[in-house]
């Protein structure tokens, strides 16, 4: 499975409404995209991780273990964006060296660094959300606050519930193939054929299971009424709004401080 998972804990961040948390991340991601300098995402990244540690009570060890593989993945992205930077867009490029067809300029490196820190800031936001949000609360909140049709909300819950089954299913398909003496040859062609052999039975079994569950749901009159009641009702409390507003104020404060210090370069323009 993936690198991030829910970290069970009781904290301020864990008690926040999932939809409000998602909204806060959406706004932060959109605003961060406007910044072209490395300082804004860098500062934000540090603050998100700090909040996750202190207000979310997620141990630094867990944060570090989740993030380091992604830090490594960011390196090639940095190199690509530096090498293929559109040098013509900078007013006075500070060219460091010519490498065959590539021009390595300071502006390119700064832009590459800014984009890499942007990736890391976005990843930190994801970890922030995923580590502190119970998946079933998230689905429930999407229905109750996000106005997702409840049939879809429950379908998402069903899919989530089925998740561990796919690993078992895959193991069964692999065993069935091995018993019949199929597969095992290497090379990328073999891998591709293997993918095809596994994908179709896996998807077919997903479809069969979905249909069976849907029939069971229908037979219990699920979806017969336009609305339904809930055993657990999630609320949006004043602390949720306080969190959303303080996140935006913090973001504005970062922009303001960095601009006063002369470290930003304005929205949508190039770093100087």
């Amino acid at each position, binding site marked *: 499975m993936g690198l991030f998972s829910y970290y069970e804990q009781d904290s301020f961040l864990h008690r926040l409404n999932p939809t409000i948390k998602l909204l806060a991340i959406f706004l932060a991601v959109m605003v961060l995209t406007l910044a072209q300098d490395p300082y804004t995402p860098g500062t934000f990244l540090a603050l998100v991780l700090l909040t996750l540690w202190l207000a979310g009570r997620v141990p630094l060890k867990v944060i570090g273990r989740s993030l380091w593989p992604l830090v490594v993945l960011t390196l090639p992205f940095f190199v690509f964006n530096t090498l293929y930077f559109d040098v013509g867009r900078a007013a006075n490029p500070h060219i460091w060296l010519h490498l065959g067809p590539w021009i390595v300029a300071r502006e390119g490196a700064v832009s590459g660094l800014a984009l890499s820190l942007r990736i890391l800031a976005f990843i930190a936001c994801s970890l922030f959300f995923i580590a502190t949000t119970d998946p079933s609360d998230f689905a429930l909140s999407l229905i109750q606050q996000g106005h997702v049709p409840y049939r879809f909300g429950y379908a*998402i819950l069903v899919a989530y519930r089925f998740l561990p089954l796919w690993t078992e299913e895959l193991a069964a398909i692999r065993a069935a193939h091995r018993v019949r003496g199929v597969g095992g040859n290497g090379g990328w062609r073999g891998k591709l054929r293997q993918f095809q052999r596994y994908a179709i039975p896996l998807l077919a079994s997903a479809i069969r299971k979905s249909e069976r569950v849907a029939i069971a749901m229908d037979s219990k009159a699920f979806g017969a009424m336009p609305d339904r009641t809930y055993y657990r009702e999630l609320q949006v409390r004043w602390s949720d709004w306080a969190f959303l507003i303080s996140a935006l104020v913090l973001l504005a404060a970062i922009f303001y401080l960095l601009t006063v210090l002369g470290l930003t370069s304005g929205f949508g323009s190039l770093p100087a």
Partner: protein
Amino acid sequence: MSKSVRTLVYALAVGAVTLLVYYVAAVVRGPKVEYVNWSPIVAAVLTIMGLAAGAAWGVGGELSQWKTRDAVLVANLALVFGLLFLGWGMVWDLIKPLNAILPGIRDLSYGFWFLAALVAPYIIRKPGAAVVAETLAALAEWLAGSQWGFTLLISGLIQGGMAEIVFAAYGYRRYKLDTLMLAGAAAGIGSLVVDYFFWYSNLKPGVLAIMLVARLISGAILGGWLAKVIADGLVHSGALGSFPVAREGREQV
């Protein structure tokens, strides 16, 4: 208003409004507005995002018409595709060196990420299937811890919205190889637009052009063609017996 017309009208309306807002902000208010400059690329990017978001908005009302069976099927398919997408991210990182041959050529592998938006509508043939499937697959990929973080949700919505426009343009009636390939190519445009917005705005226009061509090709073949192969394989397995895609096959026989 028929369903397909409704999707297209919403798409065009939101696309036009987006373009107008950008035009007013960048041109009408004059060059003194420091932060917004007119650029044809940005105009195209914003308009296409508007088109796709509008299509997604337009089909939103359709979702309450879905049967439980369709919703559960699409959610499960999307989850499985989301996990496959996460794995494809590793392939994407492994073939990074290809970009040293020709920058952007790696994008020939991009079409795989549109499969959810193509397989789901092909199977259930309902308005909204492309948007819902691709967005949910992106959600699954995001929650499983993808390197692209939250931007995936926006990518999913825009890619699905672009594919949805093609299915709507065919009146939600024709689901053949050409429809799937066109929808895949449209999703390819949508993907580049979002990537430009988040990551690629400082790249050379030439590199962006190669990426666009690569994604159109990849969306059509690795997306559209592969989606048909997978879906037909599923029909063949008998799992889709009660869905529209299998009924069509029986009528032909």
